[in-house]
Structures are given as C-alpha cells and as structure tokens.
C-alpha cells in the first residue's frame, strides 16, 4: 500500500495526458521542429553528425520546460495540489508520482527524436551502441524528470513565475546534459569515442538521478507550499 | 619604477605626475586598471545604494525594532 499513492498520481497524470494528447499533438512536433531548426542553424553535415547526440538532448531539454508547465497546469486547474496538501498527504509521494509520469512522456519523446536524428543527421546505431543508448535515455530522462518536477512546483501559479523555470532548471541539469551527450556520442560513434567510455557517463547519470530523487522527495513539499 | 614613486610622502606634483605615468605605462594597463576600476565602481555602487536605502528607511522604524542598536 505504501507505493500506492505514487502510482495513483502517475496514472492520473498519464490519463490526463492520454485524454488531452498534448505531448503527442504538440510537444513531439515541437521537438521535431527544433531538430530541423538545428539543421538550419548549423548548416554543415559533418557538424550535425558530430553533434547529433547533443542536439537530441537539447531538444529534449527544451521540451522538458513545456511538459513541466503542462504537468502543473493540471494541478492549478482544479487546485488538486492544495486539496492533497490539506488532506495531509505526503507530498513526497506526489512528487515521485508526477516525476514518473513526466519521465514516461519524455521517454516517448526521445523514442521519436532518436530516429529523427538518425534520419536528419545521418548517424548510425549498432547493437552495443543501442544498449548504451537506451540505458542512457532511461537514466538521463529520470534525472531530467526529477529536476523538472521539483522546480516546476515552484514556478507554477502565474504572476511571472513560468519564465523562472528554465533559469532554475538549466544550471541544475547541466551535468545531465554533459553526461547524456557524451554517452550518446559514444553510442552513435560520432565523436570517435568508444562505447565503453559512454558507460562511465551513464554511471554519473545514475548518481545524479539517485541524488535528486532523494533530495526532491524531501524538498518538494516546501517548494510547493503556498 | 622611478625613484620619485618610492619617495611618496612630500612628493611634488611633478613627481606624482611622472609616477602616475609609470603606472599607466605598464603593459596591458587598460585591462589591469580596468579590473581595479570596475571592482571599485561595483563595490562602491552597492555600498552607496545600501546606505542610501537604509538612510531612507531608518526614520520610519522605531529604535526598539532595531535589534542591532
């Protein structure tokens, strides 16, 4: 029964998404468009091929901001968070539930972006690289979702708060960007890096996710308190 | 560095002028002096703004409410 609330919150968020289809209808196209825009801005094929890993994670990070706003818009719409808090519910569990839902949405997004990168930026993936790639996606997405949900609670509520989200989140997820990009480059063999190096970076991603999983569970309640 | 600079107390205006030219003549004087100047300006600006605001607010508050006095 202990984990029940976590999964209940996650399921509720995902059901809301399934009904509204914001991720599939708006965010995925947005992210795809960002990938295309990168090609326009960066122009040269060698550059795109070299930086493909980084571009995927950049597009994912930009989409994170949109998804976080959405995840908390659900809350303010019917004041659900307030109701939960008043009922004495452990907000840490709510945090984990929302993070899981966000993680699923981000993962779905990345599953679209990686093939887009393969097509647009002309990179290849082989078997060992694919294992590394999927593991990287899981670990990095966890970190991104945990941080996004944590600061998202702070920046929802109007009155000029939404613009604060990128400012707060980007410095914190910098390690995820660094590690995920290096690992993805190893997986795509685009930087001349070996696959084995990528696994070291995955380790960093795992540590990051664990650290913020714990910190976020403890801190979320204080940040959301109104 | 000139002897004039070494004898600061009682230095004449001319000697101080020569001394100042010495300082300006150092390599990369612009960057070095710029760093010092920028630091001074930034710090003084914050100090001035703090004091000014305090001066404006202090009359509005009774002394009993100022625990540091």
């Amino acid at each position, binding site marked *: 029964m202990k984990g029940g609330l976590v999964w209940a919150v996650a399921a509720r968020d995902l059901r809301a998404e399934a009904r509204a289809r914001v991720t599939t209808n708006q965010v995925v196209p947005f992210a795809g468009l960002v990938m295309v825009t990168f090609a326009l801005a960066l122009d040269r094929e060698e550059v795109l091929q070299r930086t493909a890993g980084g571009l995927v994670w950049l597009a994912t990070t930009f989409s994170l901001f949109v998804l976080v706003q959405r995840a908390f818009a659900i809350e303010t719409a019917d004041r659900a968070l307030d109701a939960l808090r008043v009922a004495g519910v452990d907000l840490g569990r709510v945090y984990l539930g929302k993070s899981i839902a966000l993680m699923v949405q981000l993962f779905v997004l990345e599953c679209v972006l990686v093939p887009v990168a393969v097509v647009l930026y002309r990179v290849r993936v082989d078997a060992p690289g694919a294992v590394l790639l999927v593991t990287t996606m899981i670990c990095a997405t966890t970190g991104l979702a945990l941080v996004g949900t944590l600061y998202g609670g702070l920046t929802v509520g109007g009155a000029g708060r939404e613009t*604060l989200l990128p400012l707060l989140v980007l410095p914190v997820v910098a390690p995820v960007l660094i590690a995920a990009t290096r690992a993805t480059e190893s997986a795509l063999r685009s930087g001349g890096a070996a696959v084995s190096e990528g696994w070291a970076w995955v380790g960093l991603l795992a540590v990051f996710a664990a650290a913020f999983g714990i*910190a976020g569970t403890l801190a979320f309640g204080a940040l959301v308190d109104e | 560095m000139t002897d004039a600079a070494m004898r600061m107390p009682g230095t004449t205006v001319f000697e101080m002028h020569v001394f100042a030219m010495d300082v300006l003549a150092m390599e990369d004087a612009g960057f070095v002096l710029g760093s*010092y100047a920028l630091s001074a300006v930034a710090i003084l600006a914050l100090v001035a703004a703090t004091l000014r605001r305090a001066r404006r607010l202090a009359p509005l508050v009774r002394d009993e409410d100022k625990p540091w006095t």
Partner: protein
Amino acid sequence: MRGTGTATTRGIGVVALACMAWVVWGGLVATPRDVVQGDAVRIMYVHVPSAWVAYLAFVVTAVASAGLLFGPRRSLGFDRVAGASAEVGVLFMGLTLVTGSLWGRITWGEFWQWDPRLTTTAFLFVTYLGYLAVRGLDGAPEQRARRAAVVALLAVLEIPLVHFSVVLWRSLHQRASVLDPGGDVKLDDLMLFTLFVGVVAFTCLYTWLVLHRSRLAALVEVAGRGELDRAIAARRAEAGA
C-alpha cells in the same frame, strides 16, 4: 535615530578601507611584475580575493539556509543573512568572472576558457540569480524564507555535481589541469602579503555589506508592516468618523 551602522560595522569598514588602500598601492605599484606574465599578474590581487568572497558568500547562504530550516530557533534573521549574502555574493561572482576573463585575455589570449573553475563560477553566478529571483516571489514571510532556503540547499547539491561533470568533460579535451592564469606565477613575499591583505580587505567588505544589508532587510520588513498598520488605522479612522 539610528541607521544600520554600529561600532562594529564602522570598525570593519575602517579595516576594509585601510586594507584596500594597501591592495591598490601594493597591487598596482609596489609589487614586482611577474617574470612570465608581466603586469597582468596585478589583476590577481583583485581577482583571487573576489573569487574567495564569492565562494564564501555561497557557503554563508547555505549555512544560514540550513540554520533556518533545521536550527533550534528558526528565526527569520537567518533568512535575511542568507539573502544579503546572496546579493553580495552575486556581485563578487560577477566581478570574479569579469576580472578572470580580462586576466585570461592577456595570459591565454582568450576572454573565456571552458576550464572547470571558471565554468563552475559561471554556473554559480546564474544559480544565484535564480535564487534571488525565487526570493522575489510573493508569499507569506515564513513561506518565502523556507522556500528560498530549500532552493539554496539544492544549489549546494547542484554545484559540486556541475563542477565534477565539467572536470570530467574538460579532461576529454587534453586539458586535465585547471587553467589558472595564476598557475605559473611565482609569488615572492610582498606579492603573497598583498594577496593576503586583499583577502582580508574583501572579506571585511563582504562582512560589512552583509551586516548592513541584512539589517536593511529587517528595516524593510518592519517599515512595510508599519505602512500596513498605518493604512489600516487610517481606514478605521475614516470608518469611525
């Protein structure tokens, strides 16, 4: 009528001024040029103390935030110190980045290098801008203080992670060591002394500023409440008349 100054702050101020005078004299004139860098090394006397204070401010904000959240008394004084330290810290972080950049331009030929220390300081700067923005959000005083304190402690978690990642990242680019403009400088006694005086001067300045600004924050809060009380009294008077 008392302002935010006390005997203590006046004393600290005097020491700060005296030490700063020495730094300017020592840094610009009395100390010798470096064998390799020439006069560029003089920037060190403002850059290094600046960096020291920037990190000191970060630590103080973190400790004050922890004091607010976990301390026995949970006084809002901790919050005021945390905020004041952050405001002053941001100034010195900015100065560190600019002076470091100017120094680097002379020694490395570039205004910026992605070396771990400089990059981490840049992240620290932006993180603190975010922290100050969070402090500016509306809410009840205890709420805002708690919220800001949590954000500050999250920064304590974030900054080492960022630094570690950047160190690993840059080690891939054949530059494992920290790119320090002062790395090869041989410090003679006078240079070392001037540097030390600089650290003392900047620390005194920092302390002076944080004391004044946290007292200023207290004034702002009381004055704000006072205004509210007067407004309520005025309404009552109107209603009664």
